């Protein structure tokens, strides 16, 4: 018998795709239940104010309307959404109520919910609700929020509602004595992940059993079950979250939002199933936003370009409330500024600022996209000031392998200890430069060719992954000799079904079709954690390995019994238990033996994929248009389970980064009205916009922190893009001395930078 060829590492096409391509997927809006009603949400059209009175009588009287609920019917105190990640008592006053009670703090905040026979009737009824709101002055920009006097939470006395301190070593008098220092104010604008499928909830209450079933769960079904059970005062095992297919998460979709309470509440109250499908306008107004952080940053170097220290004073505008994942970006933006570089002394203060905008949370590369923009801008500025080549400057400061593992700067409050695990940072930089023909293209820097200025930049990054504390997987040997694999990981379109099938098939030495994955629903495993922080391959994958090891030993024991020999006389090979005497049994024969095991993988150590990107841009100084001529990325993911799905993740991730750097922008006016409330104004990259992306993922330094060796990946593509593009534009427009300090790099902004440039070139 020939040796089995491992499936891990092979570019296997996604097993999810057949069903999806045939239109057999099941998304939230595909769910239909008998007697189902439809919900629509009345949202605040005012950025900041006090609800004086709500009159729902005309809406209730409309034919086809079953109920209208506001805070009054929901009951006071109105439940408030908990902080899921790194909660702190200090955040309690700033948590979002599931429906506005008294104050409204952003345009899009739910005020009332209508339940009707059809979604259209429900929307008709919204227009009949009369809301009297006393309008207060709003604050939307960081400057306005810091200045006040308008306060989101009057009793707190300030719009600065929380803060983090991040420290490594002592800065002492470094900035007074260093040969070189530079200080800049930089800003990354507000944008977020736009999922192809909007959010959706279908809830059904079984009064006889006291059981609540919800469809539309994604990303973190177990966490949301716990939150909902608490709000409905039900035991957790009386609440079920069902995850179907999901048209994307990107960190934003799948967290607990007001509707995740309002729809089940209505279903229980009315005794009828209720469906709510978010429309795109609601999505843009009220989904988790991200970024929106300003940074006063100072760098100190010696005369040879060695970084001595960095000091950063940041203000992150989180919008109106703390929600489930709001803490992550302000923590990360503070912790990731040093990145893969040796920054001996580091100090950052991150002020968390409230404003009249949609609450923010995690979005692909949370805090890291921003931190990398700040850092990489400063590196290019410092290198240029010191007359050191920008690549050489990075070489002098990248951490060497001998310096790893390297602890992150310490953060308080809610400290977490984590360290860069492994990597050959400079080597991958070299690979990327070679692939991008960096040396050969240097003559193009700043050169005008056919009316456009060419520029190239290079950046290095690290990406965090594999958040603990644990993940579960349950394997069951079925009667037909196949294995059902139930996992706590969530499928958000990233291909986790395929990945976990590959890992399980290898562990069990079986073909792919002998494994069937069931994911993301709260009845499959006792406890699951879901998909965020690039964790499912590492955490879910290792849980699969543990489960496989255990059921193999169960199979050996059972097989030994059937083959009438001792446990020491049997071995497992390619789905058969083989006895030394020559006899063997297959999985079908073992099927009746109750072979099943639920394993939990525990891990508190993060993985750090890393790599380098090179961008080659051509800038039209007259229109401000930026063309991506070439984009090259290399990341070391430690161990690659499926190069095909990883490649797809990497490309998509870069495109999202380019969208954030160039196009996507949530614009609010001073009153808190959102001016980019449709996809005609909030510009998401289209499939044809960025054709020139070349990315490769390699296996150079596996993570030493867990058996699989893989590192969380998929967010890395996004992380360096903002800083990289800004640096490439600066390189292209060097004759104009243009130095972008803010994103996005919109044509209007680039044109203005050229107009305002201190020195015009010969043009």
């Amino acid at each position, binding site marked *: 018998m020939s040796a089995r060829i491992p499936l891990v590492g092979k570019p296997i096409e996604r097993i999810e795709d057949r069903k999806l391509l045939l239109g057999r997927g099941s998304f939230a809006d595909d769910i239909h239940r008998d007697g189902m009603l439809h919900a629509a949400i009345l949202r605040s059209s005012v950025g900041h104010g006090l609800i004086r009175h709500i009159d729902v009588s005309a809406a209730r009287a409309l034919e086809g309307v079953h109920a209208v609920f506001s805070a009054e019917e929901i009951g006071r105190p109105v439940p408030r959404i908990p902080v899921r990640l790194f909660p702190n008592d200090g955040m309690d006053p700033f948590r979002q109520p599931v429906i506005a009670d008294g104050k409204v703090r952003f345009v899009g905040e739910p005020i009332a919910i209508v339940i009707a026979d*059809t*979604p*259209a009737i*429900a*929307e*008709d009824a919204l*227009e009949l609700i009369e809301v009297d709101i006393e309008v207060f002055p709003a604050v939307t920009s960081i400057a306005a929020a810091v200045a006040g006097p308008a306060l989101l939470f009057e009793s707190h006395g300030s719009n600065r509602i929380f803060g983090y301190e991040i420290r490594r070593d002592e800065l002492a008098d470094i900035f007074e004595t260093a040969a070189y220092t530079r200080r800049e104010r930089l800003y990354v604008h507000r944008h977020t992940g736009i999922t192809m499928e909007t959010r959706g909830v279908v809830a059904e209450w079984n009064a006889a059993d006291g059981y609540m079933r919800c469809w539309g769960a994604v990303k973190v079904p177990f966490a949301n079950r716990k939150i909902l059970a608490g709000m409905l005062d039900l035991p957790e095992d009386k609440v079920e979250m069902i995850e179907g297919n999901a048209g994307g998460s990107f960190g934003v979709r799948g967290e607990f939002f007001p509707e995740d309470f309002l729809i089940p509440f209505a279903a229980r109250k009315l005794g009828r199933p209720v469906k709510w499908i978010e*429309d*795109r*306008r609601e999505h843009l107004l009220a989904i988790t936003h991200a970024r929106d952080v300003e940074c006063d940053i100072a760098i100190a170097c010696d005369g040879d370009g060695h970084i001595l220290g960095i000091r950063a004073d940041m203000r992150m505008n989180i919008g109106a409330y703390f929600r489930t994942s709001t803490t992550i970006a302000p923590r990360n933006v503070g912790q990731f500024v040093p990145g893969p570089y040796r920054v001996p002394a580091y100090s950052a203060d991150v002020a968390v600022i409230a404003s009249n905008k949609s609450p923010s949370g995690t979005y692909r590369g949370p805090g890291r996209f921003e931190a990398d923009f700040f850092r990489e801008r400063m590196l290019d500025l410092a290198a240029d000031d010191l007359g050191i080549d920008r690549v050489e400057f990075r070489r002098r400061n990248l951490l060497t392998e001998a310096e790893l593992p390297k602890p992150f700067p310490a953060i308080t409050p809610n400290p977490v200890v984590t360290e860069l695990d492994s990597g050959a940072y400079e080597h991958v930089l070299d690979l990327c430069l070679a692939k991008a023909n960096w040396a050969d293209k240097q003559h193009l820097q700043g050169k005008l060719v056919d009316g456009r200025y060419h520029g190239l930049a290079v950046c290095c990054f690290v990406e965090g992954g594999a958040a603990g504390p644990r993940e579960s997987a349950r394997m069951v040997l079925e009667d037909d000799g196949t294995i059902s694999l139930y996992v706590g990981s969530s499928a958000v379109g990233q291909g986790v079904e395929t990945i976990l099938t590959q890992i399980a098939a290898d562990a069990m030495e079986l073909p792919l079709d002998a494994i069937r994955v069931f994911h993301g629903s709260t009845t499959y495993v006792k406890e699951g954690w879901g998909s965020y922080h690039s964790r499912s391959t590492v955490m879910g994958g290792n849980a699969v390995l543990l489960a496989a090891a255990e059921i193999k030993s169960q199979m050996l024991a059972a097989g030994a019994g059937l083959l009438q020999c001792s446990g020491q006389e049997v071995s497992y090979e390619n789905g058969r238990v083989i006895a030394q005497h020559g006899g063997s049994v297959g999985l079908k024969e073992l099927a009746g033996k109750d072979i099943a095991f639920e394993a939990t993988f525990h891990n508190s150590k993060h993985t750090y994929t890393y790599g380098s990107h090179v961008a080659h841009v051509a800038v039209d100084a*007259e*229109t*401000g*248009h930026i063309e991506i001529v070439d984009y090259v990325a290399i990341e070391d993911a430690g161990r690659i389970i499926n190069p095909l799905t990883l490649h797809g993740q990497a490309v998509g991730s870069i495109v999202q980064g380019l969208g954030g750097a160039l*196009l996507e*922008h949530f*614009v609010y006016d001073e009153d808190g009205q959102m*001016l*980019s409330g*449709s996809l*005609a*104004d909030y*510009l998401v*990259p*289209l499939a*044809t*916009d960025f054709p020139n992306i070349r990315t490769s993922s390699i296996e150079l330094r596996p993570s030493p922190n867990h058996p699989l060796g893989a590192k969380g990946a998929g967010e890395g593509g996004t992380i360096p893009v903002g800083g990289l593009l800004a640096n490439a534009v600066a390189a292209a427009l060097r004759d104009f001395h243009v130095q972008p300090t803010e994103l996005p790099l*919109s*044509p*209007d902004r680039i*044109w*203005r930078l050229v*107009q305002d440039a201190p020195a015009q070139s010969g043009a």
Partner: protein
Amino acid sequence: MKMPQFDYACPSSLEEAIQLLSDNEGAKVLSGGQSLLPLLAFRMAQPTLLVDIQKLAGMDRIEISADGLRVGARVRWCQIEDDKRLATAHPLFQFMINHVAHYQIRNRGTVGGSLAHADPSAEMPGVARVCDCDIVAVGNAGERVIKAADFFVAALETSLQEDEIITEVRFPPWPSGRRWAFHEFARRRGDFAIAGVAVFFDIGSDGVIADAHVGVIGAGDTPIRLDAVEQLLNGQRLDEELIGRARHLASETVDPQSDIHAAGDYRKSLVGTLTARGLRDAASSGAVK
């Protein structure tokens, strides 16, 4: 984003359609639906009745004669894109329509629908204005021929009466050898233009510009013509000096609004830039573009 309630009619004759429009205040014509249906979904329009003109006979052809083009109101963008005759019969028209939105939208959107919607950033109103088209509309009072210059009143506002339906748009003939260009700038391919400039002119045997047309979209309440720039160009030889003056004048002539994608001063500059590029491009285009 569910549409409000409305009644729907799909008449089989133009007379019937006009009658429905005049009998129902607030009724709207539904053609390709590419602008109207999103407005309904956003509840920014709440018509009582939609009069779908898809069953009306005719109005769906492009006729080419010595008198110019007659383009039916129900002609879709994809027909213009695919019509090989237009490469010589009216290359500017065909080229501008290639900038309309995306493939899927071009399969549905219609000439009459875009004219009636009158978005000042849209290509069809722009091409009608720069080419001095006649827009033919029929209502209870009979047929009316409206000059493009008189048709566009303000953003999303035309001189059409409530009961009038556009049936056709007529283009003056396009002489061979005419120099032309169209430059549009948008954030993404297929978006509404931040600004777009169409230019065309003839070069007489004396080598000077004659019959210059310069039209701009995206920089005013309606598609506009830059009369001053046209006057500057006529009778002159096109050289870099003239292009520079045209650029400056074009920029100074327009007074565009600011929005979240571009400030007014940026748009002013852009109109100048696109005018200069258009003129250069047109000059080098010769007769064979």
